[in-house]
């Protein structure tokens, strides 16, 4: 037995660990990184050099235009024109004229909205961004209250603040009353026919119409605000109004269409498919042409909308078709077991959708909704073609002002617009990616 030694007794077995050695100099640190990711082979080296050349060609002129040679202060075109063009800059100068953007900033944001009334726009902005921030940041409490605020209180407040309220709604009281009586009768008859208790249905309908009457009253109430025509609106204000209204209107319509497209009822499905495929098959600009030229023809004589409202209707129809497809994606991504489970619990179709399917499906498609919004936000620029002054349209219209007319004016305006749109869209896309990671609970197939 004595011949058997434990490993510790054998002289050539190491008893303690060697200290960790550092990796060879060629595979660590800055040098290794450069070698690995930039110069690992001859083709890669050529590629890297080509990219460096590209950067060298592209970046310095852009930086020089935007920052290096840019003019930041001044009162008229002289600071942004070369001597040959009647200004003070040396010949051959080419830089951004930020002084012009500063001078026009107010118009780029509010359009021709009267200066003394701009506080109203500011309040709407604060309400909107405040409510939105509360909704978008996951850790902020009171989500339900916030949604009610943003979907009911805010639109009414914004409408009154922006237009000035005191809208001519007197003619609507009687039709609404007729409609209310009709709805109550139908609800009662329906409940009787299906042999259920009519009371809850009647209560809901009554509450809805009381709400509508209150809404009419508020819209018609004179708050003493000055009336501001939508022709005076412009700039970022119009861009945001169109984008936000478009997405807000397209959500309910889109959900309804998505449910319709997946419905078992053939006529409902047919109408939904035709509606969705029609709007998705045509360009937005033809939709805007249609809503601005053709829509007035479809209305009874004497009824006319203003231009902004017509564009809003076009945008809402268009984006609800896209929203429907986004929501449908969410509905399809849910496992079949969710539907079957809901049915096994004895829920009817409405309860199944409201309590089981839609909450999960809509959660899945939040990134998709944000992406639709980004698309819509970019597409709002198209309204300038039908003569509305959105952010880009307002910038373009400022080119006709002789005070700042210079060869760099257009480029400066476009650069400013590009930066602003980029900041908005990029931050939204980052948010969408953040939500995607956060919401990824393994439901997706």
């Amino acid at each position, binding site marked *: 037995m004595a011949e058997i030694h434990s490993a510790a007794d054998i002289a050539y077995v190491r008893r303690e660990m060697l200290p960790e050695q550092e990796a060879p100099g060629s595979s660590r640190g800055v040098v290794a990184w450069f070698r690995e990711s930039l110069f690992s082979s001859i083709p*890669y080296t050529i*590629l890297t050099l080509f990219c460096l050349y590209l950067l060298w060609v592209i970046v310095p002129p852009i930086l020089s235009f935007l920052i290096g040679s840019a003019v930041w202060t001044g009162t008229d075109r002289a600071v942004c024109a070369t001597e040959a063009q009647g200004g003070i800059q040396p010949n051959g100068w080419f830089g951004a004229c930020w002084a012009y953007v500063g001078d026009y900033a107010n118009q780029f944001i509010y359009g021709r909205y009267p200066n003394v009334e701009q506080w109203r726009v500011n309040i709407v902005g604060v309400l909107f961004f405040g409510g939105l921030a509360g909704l978008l940041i996951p850790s902020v409490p009171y989500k339900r209250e916030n949604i009610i605020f943003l979907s009911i209180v805010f639109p009414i407040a914004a409408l009154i603040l922006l237009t000035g309220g005191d809208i001519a709604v007197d003619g609507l009281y009687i039709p609404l009353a007729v409609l209310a009586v009709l709805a109550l009768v139908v609800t009662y008859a329906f409940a009787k026919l299906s042999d259920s208790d009519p009371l809850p249905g009647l209560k809901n309908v009554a509450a809805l119409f009381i709400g509508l009457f209150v809404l009419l009253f508020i819209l018609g109430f004179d708050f003493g605000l000055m009336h501001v025509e939508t022709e005076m609106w412009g700039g970022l204000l119009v861009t945001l109004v169109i984008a936000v209204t478009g997405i807000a209107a397209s959500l309910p319509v889109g959900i309804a269409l998505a449910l319709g497209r997946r419905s078992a009822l053939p*006529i409902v499905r047919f109408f939904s498919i035709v509606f969705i*495929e029609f709007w998705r098959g045509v360009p937005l*600009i*033809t939709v805007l042409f249609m809503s601005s030229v053709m829509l007035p023809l*479809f209305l009874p004589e004497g009824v006319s909308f203003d231009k902004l409202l017509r564009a809003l209707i076009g945008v809402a129809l268009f984006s609800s078709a896209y929203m429907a497809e986004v929501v449908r994606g969410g509905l399809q991504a849910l496992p079949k077991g969710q539907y079957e489970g809901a049915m096994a619990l004895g829920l009817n179709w409405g309860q199944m959708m409201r309590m089981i399917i839609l909450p999960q499906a809509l959660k899945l498609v939040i990134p998709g909704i944000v992406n639709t919004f980004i698309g819509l936000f970019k597409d709002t*620029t*198209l309204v300038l073609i039908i003569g509305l002054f959105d952010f880009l349209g307002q910038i373009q219209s400022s080119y006709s002002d002789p005070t700042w007319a210079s060869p760099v004016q257009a480029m400066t305006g476009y650069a400013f617009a590009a930066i602003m749109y980029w900041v908005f869209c990029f931050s939204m896309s980052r948010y969408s990616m953040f939500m995607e990671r956060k919401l990824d609970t393994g439901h997706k197939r």
Partner: protein
Amino acid sequence: MAVTDATGNGSGESAPKVALLNNPEIRGWVFQIILAILVVYLAYTGWANMNANLRAAGIASGWGFLGTNAGFAISQSLIEYSQASSTYGRVYIVGLLNTLAVAFVGIIFATIIGFIVGVARLSKNWLVSRLATVYVETLRNIPLLLQIFIWYFGVLRLLPQPRQGFDFGPLGLLNNRGYFAPKPVWGEGGIFIVYAFIAACVIAWGVGRWAHKRQMATGQIFPSFLFGLGVIVLLPLATFLALGAPLTWDIPEMGGFRPSGGMTIIPEYIAMLVALSTYTASFIAEIVRAGILAVNRGQTEAASALGLRNGPTLRLVIIPQALRIIIPPLTSQYLNLTKNSSLAVAIAYPELTSVFAGTALNQTGQAVEIISLTMLTYLTISLVTSLFMNWYNNRVALVER
């Protein structure tokens, strides 16, 4: 109306009677009929209002205007068009062809750029992948209309006058009137080269089928791709040389006032093409990247375990599977590009929306006819493309279980 007392009939076996409206099938039909009536009513009211409004405005509806003389000039036309004698129907066709011209070429460029950038984003070269990322994130977050403006007003309009313009010698001229490209002039027998090309395509296809069949039967591989490529290149080339190279180039030259000769590519077309293809490429790049990333790593490993080299792995294993993921969203990008070509109305490139739904509409006032025809045209293009792509997609789709 309905007897609903389930227990009232005394027999426990028969199914309980339910109220008629609680029968899901009947309930469904009631809803649908109400919906159909509503839709028909709305459509009818709209139609009636429209007719009343048109009558009140004194506009005669109908398609007769398509046969009347348009009388305005169009700066680019693929078919014969004259201001003096061409009709509105002709304007429509010119516009449609111009739309297709910018969309078709734009799709080709967008695909090429998109695939390059998409692959570049996956590159191990840090600089290359960062540059590709910057490209994608910059271009897709700026509205297309703004990009069109920047290319048109910021770049092409700022090019020098024809006299001071760039002269690329045999490659043509570039100035603020557009790009003046050399134009091929085919001599005697040029059509035979086309025949040779068609014949080569047929041969390549036949050989490919034969090689596939032989490989299935015997396992022997025939380099059908290289062979086909060779035939398609060499056969027309041989015909070309045999005919004595019947091709000359009409190279544009600076005339007294404006360039003469060659083909003129107007700046509006260039701006649209560049903006559409670079913008759409940024979306295609993301689609390509996602498609390649979605192919399981195990596929590559399995392919090399089977002894496939890098080329065949990519060609036979990775790309077919990636394409299956890439193609559906790629189709919708192609459609988007085609629809976005309508933004040309903002810089007056004479495509469908610009000349037909723009100028022609302003001149005739036939809003209903012109807008419907324009929308139907885009709708047809979209539906035909998606039908074709659905068919293709079903062909390549994975057949599971």
